[in-house]
């Protein structure tokens, strides 16, 4: 069963705007990861945040993690057309440290 749920399901923004998507999960985690998937392709790892971290940055990406609320957010700043993709959060559970549980994803469309 899926542990994470992304919100919103779909997002359409203008180039240059910021895109924010959220992920909620149910049980204790070791870490939470965000992946990007371009249409018809494999997933690409973007960023990993551990359960003892609250915020992490990578280029134009900013991820926050609130373990008390069991939620995370991914912010893409100054979006570009190339950011058009589906974004998935994935959680590594404390008791299943080989496996990731993926949410259903947020589809982001960046309009030129």
């Amino acid at each position: 069963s899926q542990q994470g749920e992304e919100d919103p399901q779909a997002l359409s923004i203008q180039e240059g705007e910021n895109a924010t998507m959220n992920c909620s999960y149910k049980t204790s985690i070791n870490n939470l990861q965000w992946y990007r998937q371009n249409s018809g392709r494999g997933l690409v790892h973007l960023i990993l945040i551990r359960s003892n971290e609250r915020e992490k940055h990578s280029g134009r990406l900013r991820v926050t993690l609130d373990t008390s609320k069991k939620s995370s957010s991914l912010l893409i700043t100054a979006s570009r057309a190339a950011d058009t993709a589906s974004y998935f959060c994935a959680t590594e559970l404390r008791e299943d440290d080989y496996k990731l549980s993926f949410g259903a994803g947020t589809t982001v469309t960046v309009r030129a």
Partner: protein
Amino acid sequence: SQTIHQWPATLVQPVGSPLSLECTVEGTSNPNLYWYRQAAGRGLQLLFYSVGIGQISSEVPQNLSASRPQDRQFILSSKKLLLSDSGFYLCAWSWTVPPHNEQFFGPGTRLTVL
């Protein structure tokens, strides 16, 4: 550097036919290996994972099976395909030892069962 290969890229098979999808990893040894299925517009469902040669764990009951005959080879099989087996199949690998927890995905195989 490490690379992961999957083939074929697309496959159209009749109901009841057998299936064999192959995944190989280069540039690393003793990786964890994973098979996922993704239905259209949905997230990933973990089907099988393997932490070593001959060690396969199944996540969901189904008519699919997996094998790991070599350290860096992971095969997904079926004796008789069902319509519900259609989907996008992704293979992934990860390092065995934490804290390298991210997974690296292959390009995927799009399977259509008619």
